[in-house]
Structure formats: C-alpha cells, structure tokens
C-alpha cells in the first residue's frame, strides 16, 4: 500500500474517521494499530526487525533513565557524600549507562549494517582478496531490507542518545515508543523526527479542526502533484539518459542532471508533503524537511535546507560530539604542537566533516557512488571554508554586492550547478561511468544532440515536456511566494468559491496529467530506498 494508491487514500480516510469518532484516549493506540496495518501491508516479516528495534531501544532507554534516577535519589539520600565519592558514583553510573547505550546502538546499527551494507562490505573485501587469490567470500542473495529501516534506526538512535545525555526522560510506555518508531506516514520517506518534537502531538488528544484538515488535504494534494505529475513523468527521461551512457554523452549528461534535480526534488518533497499532510490530518506535527533548497547561495546553506532532519541528525549526533571527543582533542593538541594553531583549529572540523559526510553518503546507499558523493560534498564545503579569506577580500572590495539580485542569482546558479554535478554519482551505475559521463560534458559536449528528436527519444512526448515544465514553473512561483509567507494562509484569506476552484483544478490536474497507472511505478519513492 504505497502512498500513490487509492487503497492508501481509503486507508487514511477510514483511520481519520475512526480517530475522531472513537474516544480520545484511544486516539494514539489507533495510530499504532494503523501503523502496524500499514507496515503489514508491505511484508509481515518486517515486523520482527522494527519490533527488535523498539524493544531494545525501550529497555536500554528505560535502563539508562533508571540508573540516572537511582544516582539522583542516592545523592538526595546521601547529602553528606563528598565530591570525590560523588564523582566516583557518577563515573560508575556513566559507565553502566554508556554500556547500555553502546549495546543498543551496536545492536540496531548492526542490524542495519547486516541488512543494508553487508554485501557491499563483502564485495570490497573480495575485491581486495582478488589481488592475492581467487577465493571469494560468498554474498547474501536474499536479504530483507525492511521498509523505512534507515529512518526508524536513526530516529530511535537519536532518541536513546538524547536519553543518555539526559536531554529528556525515557518514555515509560513501550507502545508509545512503538508508535514513535513506526508512525505510518513517516515510514517511507522520513523525516527523521526527534522524540520531544513529535511526541507531544503524537500522544495528545485531538479534536477535529476544520482549518487543520483543510490545510492537511491541500498539502497532500500538493505532494501528489509534485510526485505524480512531475517526478514520475521526468523519471522516464532520466532513466533513458543514465541507462545509456554511451549514447547520451556531453550536453545530454547535463540535461540528465537537470532533469534529475527536478525529479529528485519533486519526488522527495512530494513524498514529504504527503507525509506531513497525512500526519496533520491526525493533528500530529512532524518536522519540515525542506526549505526551498534550490534558492541556496552555497552548499553549506543548501544542506541546511535539503533533507534538514538528516543533516541535523548527523550534526547533533556525529559532528558536534566528534569535535569535542577526547581522541580528536588529543589530535588537535598534537597538531598544534607540530604544525601550529592554523592547522590545529582545522583538525576537529575536518575530522568531524569527513565522518559526517562519509556517514551521510553511506546512509543514502551501500555503494561507492554514494560514499564518493558524500565525500564530494565534504570537499566542496571544506574548500569553500578555506576560501573564506578570498571571499572576504572580494566582499571588502564590493561591499554592497550581497544585496544585488544578479550576484544572488549567480550564487544560486553556482550552488545548483555544483549540486547537479555531485548528484551524477546518484544517477549512474558506478563510479567510472559517472566520471566518464561527467568528463564528456567538457571533453565532448556534442551540442548537436540538443534536438527535438533526441528529447522525444527519451520516452516523453512534447506534451509531457510542456506539462513537466509548466509544473516546475508553478513550483518555482509557489516557492517565490512562500518567501513572503504561507501560500495556504494566503489562499485561506480568499473566498470559499475561489479556494474550491483552486483545489478542484489541482485535483483535476493530478488525476488527468499524473504519470501513474499501468506502466508506471508511482509507489516507488527515491528516498524510500535509502
């Protein structure tokens, strides 16, 4: 039961109906039942994995909370304790809580590694072994990859790390934690929510609210528009280009990169719009994952606006802890003595950035393409940081240029051009093909390929291109308006007839121009594979 199916719409309709008609105390249990049913509709075997994660995280978090509570009550009962004794007790508690945290993270990331990365790992070991011998370690043919495993593993990892650091108490009700882990709208595309942000609305009682429902439905429709009208239309051309790198070289690689940028954005943000809209139908608030990323003026800003929850997860749980980790501090000190303060101040940032981007790349997929994609991002960001003095000198010479529209546009185009190049790793089947395709843009541009015949040979008709282009223009226009505030709020101020006409038109466009049905795989979201 994918998002793009009548069954999903009916499923949500029934769930919403029950949610607001049943007694309020049953609202969150109903969401849990609905989430289980949604998960079961994919594969019953997935249950085991998500159950292991939920139970292990629940017990580890409770244990950590309990140990800390014991420590606090011990200190209250023994106010006479001296500082050293307190310190020793704290160290003992910390050791135990640390053990629980590490055990829990190892178990859950171990499952993720075993299911998602083991074959990639074995493949690389085999590549190394092949230099010396002909023997090979066999790979696993039929590994299950439970739906949303990357999302719920990271979500629950964030939760237990926060509990460990005492940012909040562990949830005492295992079923509530199970709902946080498995809340059905977030299973396909995330976002990677934080417990204290989602939990209050997830477990609270909600009364039906007309405006909230209206806004939620509008958001869902907007998501479907992006997904089925644009993304699922463009994917045909993107696949045609990247699956035939011998034929489509030079300028067509750049065309493919542009089309993929539009497809990826519409696919992922479309999925997130549906996710947030469906969650809002139940009065549940989940995190925003995008903030008009294509308007970013540099890569660092882009990553603050694209897949926000993944970026903040890595920042909060790898970047910052690594920057202040003891081994890194030691390395910094060593570098300061050997190479001076200039190098030393870069060490924690470089180390943490490399780990962060390696992790981000690996999160997206078990292949060198994704890892190099991550490292490419890292390189661009670090080089950009190194060039800061140069930028400063430039801005000192041109003090008012920041506010000029042509400078802003140039920065935006530059950012998107770099991102398009990096995304090529995501498109092509392997690293050599990616480099070859990228190189052909400069070595053999083949501008002669830019003909109607070439474009019509990509599996789309002229009308398809017009629809996709018009859709992209509409998204651009909406994004421009969003800078001044919520478009839905603006529409809400208009009369009922106008509002109805706007959304009836959007509905008709989705139904008629959507690329779904026989021959399409609309339920395949790019980010649900990660």
């Amino acid at each position, binding site marked *: 039961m994918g998002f793009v*199916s*009548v*069954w999903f719409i009916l499923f949500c309709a029934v769930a919403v109906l029950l949610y607001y008609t049943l007694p309020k105390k049953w609202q969150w249990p109903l969401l849990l039942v609905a989430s289980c049913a949604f998960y079961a509709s994919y594969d019953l075997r997935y249950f085991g994995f998500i159950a292991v994660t939920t139970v292990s995280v629940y017990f580890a978090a409770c244990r950590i909370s309990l140990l800390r509570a014991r420590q606090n009550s011990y200190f209250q009962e023994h106010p006479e304790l001296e500082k050293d004794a307190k310190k020793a007790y704290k160290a003992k508690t910390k050791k135990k809580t640390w053990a629980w945290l590490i055990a829990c993270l190892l178990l859950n990331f171990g499952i993720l590694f075993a299911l998602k990365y083991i074959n990639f790992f074995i493949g690389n070991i085999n590549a190394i072994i092949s230099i010396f011998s002909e023997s090979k370690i066999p790979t696993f043919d039929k590994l299950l990859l439970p739906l949303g495993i990357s999302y719920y593993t990271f979500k629950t990892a964030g939760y237990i790390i926060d509990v460990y650091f005492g940012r909040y108490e562990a949830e005492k009700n295992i079923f509530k934690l199970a709902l946080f882990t498995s809340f059905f709208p977030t299973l396909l595309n995330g976002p990677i929510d934080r417990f204290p942000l989602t939990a209050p609305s997830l477990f609270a009682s909600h009364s039906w609210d*007309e405006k909230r429902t209206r806004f939620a439905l509008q958001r869902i429709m907007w998501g479907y528009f992006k997904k089925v009208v644009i993304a699922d239309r463009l994917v045909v051309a993107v696949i045609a280009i990247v699956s035939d790198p011998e034929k489509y070289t030079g300028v067509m690689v750049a065309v493919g990169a542009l089309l993929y940028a539009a497809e990826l954005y519409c696919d992922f943000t479309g999925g997130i719009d549906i996710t947030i809209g469906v969650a809002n139908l139940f009065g549940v608030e989940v995190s925003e994952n995008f903030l008009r990323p294509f308007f970013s003026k540099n890569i660092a800003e882009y990553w603050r606006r694209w897949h926000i929850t993944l970026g903040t997860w890595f920042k909060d749980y790898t970047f910052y802890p690594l920057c202040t980790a003891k081994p890194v501090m030691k390395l910094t000190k060593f570098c300061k003595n050997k190479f001076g303060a200039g190098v030393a101040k870069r060490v924690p940032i470089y180390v943490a950035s490399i780990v962060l981007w390696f992790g981000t790349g690996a999160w997206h997929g078990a292949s060198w393409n994704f890892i190099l994609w991550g490292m490419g991002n890292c390189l661009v960001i670090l080089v950009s940081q190194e060039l800061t003095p140069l930028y400063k000198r430039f801005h000192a010479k041109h003090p008012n240029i920041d506010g000029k529209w042509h400078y802003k546009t140039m920065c935006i185009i530059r950012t998107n051009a770099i991102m398009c190049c990096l995304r090529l790793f995501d498109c092509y089947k392997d690293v050599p093909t990616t480099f070859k395709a990228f190189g052909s843009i400069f070595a053999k541009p083949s501008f002669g390929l830019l003909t109607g015949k070439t474009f019509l040979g990509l599996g789309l*008709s002229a*009308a398809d291109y017009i629809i996709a282009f018009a859709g992209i223009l509409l998204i651009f226009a909406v994004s421009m308006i969003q800078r001044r505030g919520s478009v839905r709020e603006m529409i809400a101020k208009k009369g*009922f007839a106008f509002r*109805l006409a706007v959304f*009836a038109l959007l*509905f*008709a466009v989705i*139904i*008629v*121009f*959507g*690329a*779904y*049905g*026989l021959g399409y795989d609309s339920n395949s979201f790019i980010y649900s594979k990660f």
Partner: protein
Amino acid sequence: MRSKVVLRAAICVLVFAFLFFCLQRLLMPKYTREAEEGRLTAEYYGSDKNHDVLFVGDCEVYENISPVTLWREYGISSYVRGSPQQLIWHSYYMLEDALRYETPKIVVFNVLSMKYGEPQNEAYNRLALDGMRFSSTKLKAIKASMKSEESLISYLFPILRFHSRWNELNSDDLKYMFRSTPQLSVGGYLMRVDTRPLNTDPPVGHQLMDYSFADICWEYLEKMRSLCEENGIQLVLMKAPTVAPYWYPEWESQIREYAEKHSLKYYNFLDHVETIGIDYTTDTYDEGQHLNVWGAEKLSAFFGKELAAIGAPDRRAEKDFAESWAKLCERYDAVKKYQLEILEQTGTITGFPVPE
C-alpha cells in the same frame, strides 16, 4: 458555524465527486474511431431481454453469427455476447451477467478460447469488461481476468487507467461524454460486407509441445455447464468455420470427448463447410479468419435449423417479439446498405461502419 462547515465540506465532496465523474466520462475511450468492438459489451443492456438463444464467445461468434438471419429464417430470438479474444472466463461471466436479466433456453459457447489458459492482454480485458454494468459478477470477472500488473481499482474507476488519454481526445470524446455512442451491432453481431478471399490452401498450425487445454479452461467450461444446468438451460458447443487460428484435431477430440461425456451438442462447422455452402473466396473479408455478412448468413441459416431442432422456439407469430425484431431487421438492412454504398464508393471498408 458548525453547520456552515458541514455544508462547505458537503459542497467540496460533491464538487470533487462531480469533477471526477465528468473527467472519467470524458477520458473513457468511446471506441468510435478504433477498436469499435469495445462498445459491444455495453450494447447488450440496451437490447430487449427476450432471447431464447444466447451466444457467448470471441470474434468467431460476433462476426460469424447473424441473429437477424436466425430470426428471419426460423423466428429464433437470439443475441451474441462476444468481445475480441473473449476468454472462457469472460464468456462465463458474460453469461452469469446476462442471467441477471433473462434466462435463455439455449446457450451456445464457441470453443476456440479453450486454447487460452491465462489472461492474454490488458486491452482485451478492457474491451470485454469496461462496458459491463457494476455487479458482483463484474467484480468476479475482473478478478479472474486481470494480469498481474493490473489493479482492480482501475476497473472500478477506469479514469485511473485511461487518464493518459488526455492527449488523444477528439470531438467524439466530447460528443459522447454524457450520451451513448451509436448502436454498432445488430443483436451483438458485427457486420462486414466486403470480401478478401482466401486464395491459398487454409493454413496449417505448427506443432505444439502440449495440446491439452489448461485446467482453468476446463474449470470454467464445467462452471458454465453447471450454471446452465442450474437454470434449466441447454448448453451447446460450437466451433466456427474459420480457418485461422488453426483448430488442431487434438483439441477437437478433447472437446468431442467432453461433449459426449456430458451429453452436450457440439457443432464443429469446419466439418460442414461444404454443406453450409461457405466459399472462402467470397464469404470472408480477411482471408478466412472471419466471415463476411454473406458467409455469416449462410452459417446462421444452417445453424438455425439445428437450433430449432433442439428446442429454440419460433417467435414470429408473437407480437412483442415481431415488433422488436422488425426494428432490428430494419437496422440490419440499413447497415448492410450503408456498407455496400461505402464499398461501392471507396472500394474498401474499415472497421464496422454503421449509419448514424
């Protein structure tokens, strides 16, 4: 305030439902310019439900059996429920659907589709099923016919299948958005008056690995027999006298054996071509694959005698029947005349042209 919200919600639901309905009506294929046979299934519901003989099967019935000839020659009231490459489960559910409206005395099933043991083509499923009125029978028919890549919901809401027709829309889509397309068949029969002779020896089929009919075909034939038995209907099996696709002797013996086992009448008209008087140089419009109207009339005249002999009543003296059939005969003659005029003017016939 609350009533205002409820009213607005109701208006929204109605507007969206109406829009959905209108778009569906607009985008559904009208089958006026191509694949005209897609109109056949729905046309049955507009007929007078007074049929003593019901034919079910593929093009071997709807292009080879002329109910008007059966009426004129023997006073037999009949109808052909056929569609292109109609599989045996389509035929079974067409029969079950027809029984919701009438109970004929004789059901004739053309056995060619026994050769297909699995759904063949989504397009043919659509041609057979989209015109069927909604009922539990339709649901069962859809489930039995769907290929793995198809979905039930797209049969219930065909716009989910045909929405991509937006770039193929023509004036007929608007014209017939809310009204029926012109009647195409006469009693379920599709006429062609032109001739493309078979000037060579009839084709012979290549050797097959396995000549056994699939279990599912036997299962549906058995279900059809039981359904007829339960409703006091005599089931008759037939094989039309068309030379392609090739009808293997091994298939023939399986059908004969089944017919004998269950005491069913079975007519293989390939064995009676000379008696019927079919001449493949004049009585076919596509080199022996389908009969033209002259061949269909000969076959129907021959088969009518047999049907009358096994209990199909002569209704010519009954006023209701006579009135109803007079209209059909008039239309039949008009179609024939219209096609002959086209043939004379252009020298060719495309599709199944009928006067407006």
